[in-house]
Every structure is written in C-alpha cells, then in structure tokens.
C-alpha cells in the first residue's frame, strides 16, 4: 500500500474536509458549558442539593451526616444508572405522609418559611437569550395564548430532588398505611435516589391567564440493579394506593419511564387523560368554585416551587387547569383558565 499521499489526493481531501469548518463567527460558550458541568456534578453530589426547597435542604443535611459514616459511604459508591423520563404519572393519595422517606414530588399546599425562598430570577431579555441560557429552544403555543409576548424566565442549573433511603422508615411508613406484604430490600438502606431536571424555562402571559413551564426530561438516578418497579409500587402503597393498582402503575412506569407526581387525596382535583396531537397528556382540574383570584406568580423559583408544592393553592390564586405531557426532548406543564384553552395551546406547540 502506498504510504505517501498523492499531493493531488491530499488537496482533494483537504478541500472537502475544509468545507466542514465551523463558522468563524461562532464562539462556543465555555462559561455556560462549565456552569452546566458544575450543575451535573452537583447533581451527582446530593449534599449540594438546592436549598430553596426546605425538604431537600433537610435531606441534604442528613446526607452530610450519613456520608460521614464509612459503611454507608460504601453503599453510595455503587455504579449508578440513569433513566430519563418524558412522562409524568399523576396520582392522588396520601402522599404527604411520604415526606423525607419516599421521593415523590407532590402538588399540595405548603408554606415555606422566611428565608427558604431563593433569590428571584430576572426575566430573560429575549427569546434568544432564554434559549442560550437554557441550552434548548423554548417552544411556545401559536394558539390559545393571550395575544401578548410572554415573560420568559430560565432556570439554567439542575433542579434536584434527592433522598437517602432508610429501610426502617420505609417499612414503618408501609405499616402505617396498613401494608404488611410489601418487603423492602435491605440493601437499599443508605442508597441515594434522585430526580434531576437539567434546565427549565417558564413563560407567563398576563399574570393569572396562562403559564407554561417546560423542562428537559427528568433523569432518575439510582444504584445499578435497583428495582424501580418495587420502589414505585411500595411508594404508591405507602400512599394508600391499593396493591393491584399500585402494581399496574409501577409496571407501566417501568415500561415507559415516568415520574410520579402525587396529589393529596383530600385535594379537590379531577385527573383525567386527554389526547393531544403529540400523544396522551394528564389534565388536572380544580373541582368546585375557586376562592382565590390573585395574580399568578411570575418569579420562576416561585413558579417551580408552586408547581411541585402548591400550584393549586386556591387562596393564592393558582390556575384552574394544569395540563402535563411529554415529548421526546421535553416535558410541559401548562396552566390555563380552562381545559379547552389548555388543549388548544398545547396542540399548537411545535
């Protein structure tokens, strides 16, 4: 075989390879990438979980203590697996009992104490800036939204929900729910289980009228070999969901990875599945008359907190309807005044 390249061939190849060069005016954003890497590293280190959510802060404190114990530390060093979830399964049950024991983000009323709030995030200057900061291009509805430009806010860093499993507490919570036939593997003790959303963008139109929160698929991380079906099933049963229903749901969530979003059983909500052009979605409506009516929160931290804590707190004037659905690269939460408006808007997002 010829070892020296023919000059003509060399030129011929070079010319074609040169056509691939990056544009001269493109400058990769190293600082943003570095920031995201930091975020990803933080996600791997649960003790750095964000402090804005009180529960997470408490869990983080516990983690710091647990990490100091060598035997527990060894467990946390197992290989991890990640699974991304585009879907959100919304279930009503006694999820408020699960705090700090089972990792189930919940929608319910909860007041944070003074000092728990994170500093407010300023709105993005424009759409391009929002896309650059978030690392993805936000999609907005072409129909159904008020005829004004939405205020965009970006949460570029990861949101992390994390907990360290405590088998004794998990068993106790099952006992309290009257469940005695749901064994919890002993080896789960001390392992860290977390849900991470890398970045998110909120868009709000006329306070109180419409709000769209979109984020990258949720990443679930747990040690290798962790049986997620057993975990979801046990969490659901601890929240009072009957065995067969819990098993069916847990298996569905394994087949199509989904995040479990709990709503307190006494919360007056109707939950139903609707079909959008992009696939099925979950529609959550407040039953009965609303008592609130104040402006919808526009601060992204407040909004995110509200989505996962008290989005339907009527006294604060939360939205009437929340539509949740996922596509390949995104999960959407759309709050609107009516189901019709939400569906029209959701179907026009491309």
């Amino acid at each position, binding site marked *: *075989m*010829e*070892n*020296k*390249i023919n000059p003509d*061939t*060399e030129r*011929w*190849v*070079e010319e*074609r*390879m*040169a*056509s*691939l*060069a*990056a544009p001269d005016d*493109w*400058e*990769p*954003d*190293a600082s943003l*990438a*570095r920031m*995201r*890497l*930091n975020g*990803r*590293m933080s996600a*791997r*280190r649960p*003790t750095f979980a964000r402090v804005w959510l009180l529960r997470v802060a408490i869990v983080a404190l516990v983690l710091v203590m647990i*990490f100091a114990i060598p035997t527990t*530390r060894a467990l*946390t*060093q197992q290989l991890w697996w990640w699974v991304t979830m585009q879907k959100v399964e919304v279930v009503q049950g006694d999820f408020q009992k699960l705090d700090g024991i089972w990792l189930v983000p919940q929608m319910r009323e909860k007041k944070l104490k003074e000092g728990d709030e994170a500093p407010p995030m300023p709105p993005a200057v424009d759409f391009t800036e929002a896309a650059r900061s978030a*690392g993805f291009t936000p999609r907005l509805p072409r129909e159904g939204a008020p005829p004004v430009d939405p205020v965009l806010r970006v949460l570029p860093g990861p949101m992390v929900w994390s907990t360290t499993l405590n088998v004794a507490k998990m068993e106790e919570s099952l006992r309290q729910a009257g469940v005695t036939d749901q064994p919890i593997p002993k080896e789960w003790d001390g392992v860290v289980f977390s849900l991470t959303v890398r970045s998110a963008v909120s868009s709000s139109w006329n306070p109180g009228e419409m709000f769209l929160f979109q984020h990258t698929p949720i990443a679930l991380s747990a040690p290798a070999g962790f049986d997620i079906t057993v975990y979801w099933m046990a969490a659901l049963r601890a929240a009072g969901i009957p065995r067969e229903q819990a098993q069916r749901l847990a298996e569905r969530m394994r087949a199509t990875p989904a995040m479990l979003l709990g709503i307190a059983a006494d919360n007056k909500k109707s939950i139903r599945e609707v079909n959008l052009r992009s696939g099925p979605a979950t529609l959550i409506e407040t039953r009965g008359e609303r008592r609130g009516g104040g402006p919808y929160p526009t601060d992204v931290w407040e909004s995110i907190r509200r989505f996962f804590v008290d989005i339907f707190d009527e006294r604060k004037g939360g939205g009437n309807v929340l539509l949740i659905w996922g596509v390949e690269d995104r999960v959407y939460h759309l709050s609107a005044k009516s189901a019709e408006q939400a569906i029209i808007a959701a179907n026009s997002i491309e």
Partner: protein
Amino acid sequence: MERSNQLSLPTSMPNVACDLDALFAAYYRRLTRLLYRVTGDTARAEEFAAEAFWRLYDKAPRDATNIEGWLYRTGLHLSLDYLKKERRRARYEALTFLFGGAPNPHQAIEQQEKQARVRQVLASLKPVQAAMLLLRSEGLSYAELAAALNLNPASVGALLARAGQAFKKEYVKRYGEQD
C-alpha cells in the same frame, strides 16, 4: 465519597493540568469546533464536548499524560457515533427536502450537500481514519495527531495517507470524482 473539581489524576505527571477549569479553558473551544466538523450543528457540538468533559470528570483516565488527546478521542467517538445514527435518517431528510421547507439559495444548498456528503463518507470510514482526517483538518501537526490518537509518530504520515485514500475511494464510489 464526594468528588471535587480536581480530577483524580496522578500528581506525579509533570505539566499535567489537573484542574477542570484549566482544562476547560485550554481545550473546550478547540474540542467544540472540532466536533462541529462532524455534527454540523453548534448545539450538538457543544453537547458532545460537554459530555466528553463530563466523562473526564466521571471516569478520569488512568493515563493522564495526554488529556487533550483523550478529550479529542472521546468527543470524536461520541460525535461519529451520532453521525452514524443520523445516516439512517438521510433517506427521510431527502424526502423532506423534496416535499417542503423554504427554498434556500442555490449556493447554500450546494454547500450543505457537499458537507453532508463529506460527513456520510467520514461516517463510513474506520473511526481512527475519520478521526485522523478531522484532527488534521483542524490543524493538528503529525506529532499532535500521534499524541491525540495514541499512534506511533513515525507511522502517522503513512496512516494519514491511507485515511485520505480511503476517504477519496469511498467518496468517488458514492458521488463521483467531481462530486
């Protein structure tokens, strides 16, 4: 055990930048621009570059003598893999081109087609050959190329020649000599 920003690389290695910030400052831009050649997409290039740094943090290589080369190899592996997967879509993209989309200026289309052809051919080569051509076109010297790809410096010229010939042969087979 928690990990810090400091990579767990052997400290006995002289002149090895172990600090992630320093590595970012030194190599991120070049790596991203290199990966753009493969992906043709700035966002993808940044994504794969970031992934390479993540892997460096997550599973630092045992041999820390050539972090730059390790980053290039990892980034190219990720992006060439992506390119191979994208080939499957080419058929459908061609259909999309026929059925819709705003008409582009003729010259832009020609340029895009040319780039697509080069990428298709690169995706069909042996990964090491594609990596050599890409790194060479990014301006790496023979010595840098050898270091980046763990090759014998004395063989780089010959290997590069073979890579060039393989590229041309495949290209001509698919599209003809004059494109």
